[in-house]
């Protein structure tokens, strides 16, 4: 079980002041993990213009604040995403796009796609829909900003405190040594 849940951690004091400034300049990592990424270019470019919220794409994980999981994650991608997430510097936030990272979505019975992203890494915000429209994405971003300001978006702290729990879940999927389904004799 989780040691601490999101409700028990909250930013206070000095963090609150920093958060006020942090929410105004979020750099999202330019990494397209799934099909939801096809709605990101319209969000970034002239029509919806993400930059008016102080957000922009960033090429390297070490300088990014925001990791977007754009849709389903195959196990092979999950490994890369975890590497990427651990490379990012704190404070960092994760937004999951679409229904696939919540419960598997349309791929609930696929052998290659994970069902719940929240088991492997902390998710600060989920945007539902398949795929989320640019309006929904922008709405999600503003919600995240509000959560940051209130000190509620503390997924990275949760990851730090429950590190062993997350690692165990990740190892269960990524570093198997035996078959999952038993052969019937």
């Amino acid at each position: 079980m989780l040691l601490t849940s999101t409700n028990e951690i909250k930013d206070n004091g000095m963090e609150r002041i920093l958060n006020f400034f942090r929410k105004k300049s979020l750099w999202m990592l330019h990494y397209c993990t799934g099909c939801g990424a096809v709605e990101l270019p319209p969000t970034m470019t002239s029509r919806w213009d993400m930059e008016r919220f102080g957000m922009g794409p960033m090429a390297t994980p070490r300088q990014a604040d925001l990791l977007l999981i754009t849709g389903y994650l195959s196990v092979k991608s999950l490994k890369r995403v975890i590497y990427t997430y651990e490379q990012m510097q704190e404070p960092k936030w994760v937004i999951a796009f679409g229904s696939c990272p919540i419960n598997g979505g349309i791929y609930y019975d696929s052998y290659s796609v994970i069902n719940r992203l929240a088991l492997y890494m902390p998710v600060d915000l989920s945007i539902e829909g398949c795929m989320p429209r640019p309006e929904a994405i922008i709405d999600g971003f503003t919600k995240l900003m509000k959560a940051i300001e209130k000190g509620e978006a503390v997924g990275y702290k949760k990851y730090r405190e429950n590190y062993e729990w997350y690692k165990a879940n990740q190892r269960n999927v990524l570093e198997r040594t035996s078959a999952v389904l038993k052969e019937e004799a």
Partner: protein
Amino acid sequence: MEQREIILKIKENFSKSEVKVFDEKQFSVFADKDDIVRILSFMQMIGFQQLAIISAVDWIDEKKFELVYNLFSYTHIQQVLVKTKIERDNPKIQSVMNLWEVAQMYERDVHEFFGIEFSGNDDMRPLILHNWKDKPPMRKDFDSLKYSNEIYGTFKKSEEV
């Protein structure tokens, strides 16, 4: 060449093969397992330049794998499905990577998803799947839903994460 002429030529050279016409642009040839390299190189010689895809079908009731080599000719505008059946346990067949280089990747793909061995093709590193320990996933007796529930878990609303 017209489709009729091509079929006649195939019949001439490979009397054992069965031909089934689908429509005027597509037909299939069913060949013996040992003939497959010969028939494919013959097809390449008469102008089927492109190997579009190699795929396999798992006929579990017959205990057979069917391999489908999909060829296309830019000169005759014809699509040919060259098919052959091999045994389901210990499936093995000659590789055709000497005829088309793209066959290497398709055979690697089929090997990964069906577990069919291709003799002559050595590079069989896993391409798509990560750390796969179970039986090849595209086989009919592999239960994808059960696998997914077992390893990735089912959704429980009460559980807080």
